[in-house]
């Protein structure tokens, strides 16, 4: 059977052009910071700006804390749902999908209104709320990824084997379950990282010195540096997602909350 391949190629060409042209255009634009010549001036300006490093490190720290806490919250829960309480699966799955029903801007609105007289009065309050919001945002990815990983290992046998050798619950969770879920945990972590690093809405409304608000602020005073930042961010997202895809069991969950 011969099939006409003109139409498929046409659709790919149209879509591909739409995907590639903005990236190429942005990259060329970012090279134009120096008059009459193309160069990496915009990039070196960005890297030389102490605020770039500060906000980038800040967002990275928040991302790492959020990932670690998300692991600690999700893994025992999924384990327990698999091993002891399968009836809870429905409720837990529904809760991890909440970031879709409650968009970031509404979540931060509720958090600020709820905690503005308590947590937000302390110096660390904003930071705590920011991390908490990111943990909530990470749930869909983390849950799905850990749940898939947990299906692949025989939780019951592993648990009973560990118990029969006298292991207690902490030992089982941290020394048996966690190591067996390495790939899932990394998957969830990279996806969370990709989302948190560029996140703007929550960080800006909580007035935190994160990378997203920094990028937005820069755009009011600079012309070429923002496009350099766009390229850097795209590379960062690409890196994180590529690692997820490379890890094989790629479960790049596409349902996150809208941003």
């Amino acid at each position, binding site marked *: 059977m011969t099939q006409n*391949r003109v*139409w*498929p*190629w046409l659709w790919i060409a*149209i*879509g*591909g052009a*739409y*995907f590639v042209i*903005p*990236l190429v*255009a*942005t990259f060329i*634009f970012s090279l134009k910071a120096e008059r009459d010549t193309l160069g990496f001036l915009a990039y070196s300006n960005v890297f030389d700006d102490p605020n770039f490093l500060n906000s980038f490190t800040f967002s990275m720290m928040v991302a790492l804390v959020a990932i670690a806490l998300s692991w600690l*919250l999700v893994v*025992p*829960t999924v384990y327990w749902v698999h091993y*002891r*309480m399968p*009836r809870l699966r*429905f409720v*837990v799955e529904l*809760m991890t*999908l909440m970031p*879709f029903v409650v*968009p*970031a*801007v*509404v*979540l931060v*609105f*509720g*958090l600020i*209104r709820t905690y503005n007289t308590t947590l937000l009065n302390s110096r660390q309050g904003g930071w705590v709320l920011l991390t908490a*919001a990111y*943990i*909530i945002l990470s749930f869909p990815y983390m849950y799905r990824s850990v749940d898939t990983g947990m299906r692949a290992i025989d939780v019951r046998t592993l648990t009973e084997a560990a118990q029969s050798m006298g292991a207690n619950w902490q030992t089982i969770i941290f020394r048996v379950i966690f190591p067996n879920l390495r790939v899932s945990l990394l998957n969830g972590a990279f996806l969370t990282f990709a989302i948190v690093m*560029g*996140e*703007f*809405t929550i960080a800006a409304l909580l007035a935190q010195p994160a990378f*997203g608000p920094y*990028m*937005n602020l820069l*755009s009011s005073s600079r012309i070429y540096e923002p*496009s350099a930042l766009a390229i850097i*961010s*795209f590379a960062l*997202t690409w890196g994180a*997602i*590529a690692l997820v*895809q490379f890890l094989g069991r*790629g*479960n*790049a*969950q*596409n*349902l996150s909350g*809208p*941003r």
Partner: protein
Amino acid sequence: MSSVQPVRLPIAPSAPVRRFTWSWDWLGVAPFFAFAIAFLFIPAASIFIRSFQDSSGSPTLQNIFDLTQPFILSAFAVSIRLSLFTALLGCLIGGLMAYAITLGNLPRVVRSSLSSFSGVAANFAGVPLAFAFIATLGRLGMVTDWLKWIGLDLYQSGFNIYTFWGLSFTYLYFQIPLAVLMLLPAFDGLKREWREAAENLGGSTWDYWRYVGLPILAPSILGTLILMFGNAFGAQATAFALTGGQINLVSILIGAQISGDALQNPGLGNALALGMVVVMALSIAVYGWLQQRVSRWLQ
């Protein structure tokens, strides 16, 4: 290679529920639930309750009625138009691309690169995406510049990246990849035998798509549309960074309400947020219902 799967919504257990008995098993899931209650449910409940309270805290429906002010209605209208338009166009283009890489006999490398790229682009939203489109189609953007060379002055002809159409064009950058990722499994599920059966019975290509292909794809396409609608409806960062908050969207209004009580009425802000949650919850509920229908075909 990536295998991005569409979202499966949980299906309520149909087994008879045993009478609730307390057990220590609950302790295992307690931290997760405590966290979700503190940082998700209490904030959501507070929005709900405060939507029905006036400034002194007594119950009222005034905030809900106030949502019908022309200013707010127009924010909902623009948000809904933007979400609908980008969902429909994104689904059309994404669907055609998904069709091309599944049934189009293209080299495998096209499929793997498109699905990898889609995984990245679907997650590339917000401030950097806005920057990229300003650098491309802004007043000084590269493509604007290139088009000027060939005699097409975009900004003379009325185009502006900071308007509804500019924003739609930008949103498509994460909407199309989302459609590709979500429709790939649906197209993979179309069995070759069905097409052959249609041909053996004398059906044309048109007949096949009209009576077999599209009806089977319909629930997946609808589900994708709904998810894309919600994805655009809830987005705030891209629109804010692109227009500097100058476009009247529900999400932008809520942001402005947080940073400075832009509506001069705290209760109304809560009602606005509640309205947004209601739209999102309705869309995900319809999506869940459709998913159950889709799963029949994709086994």
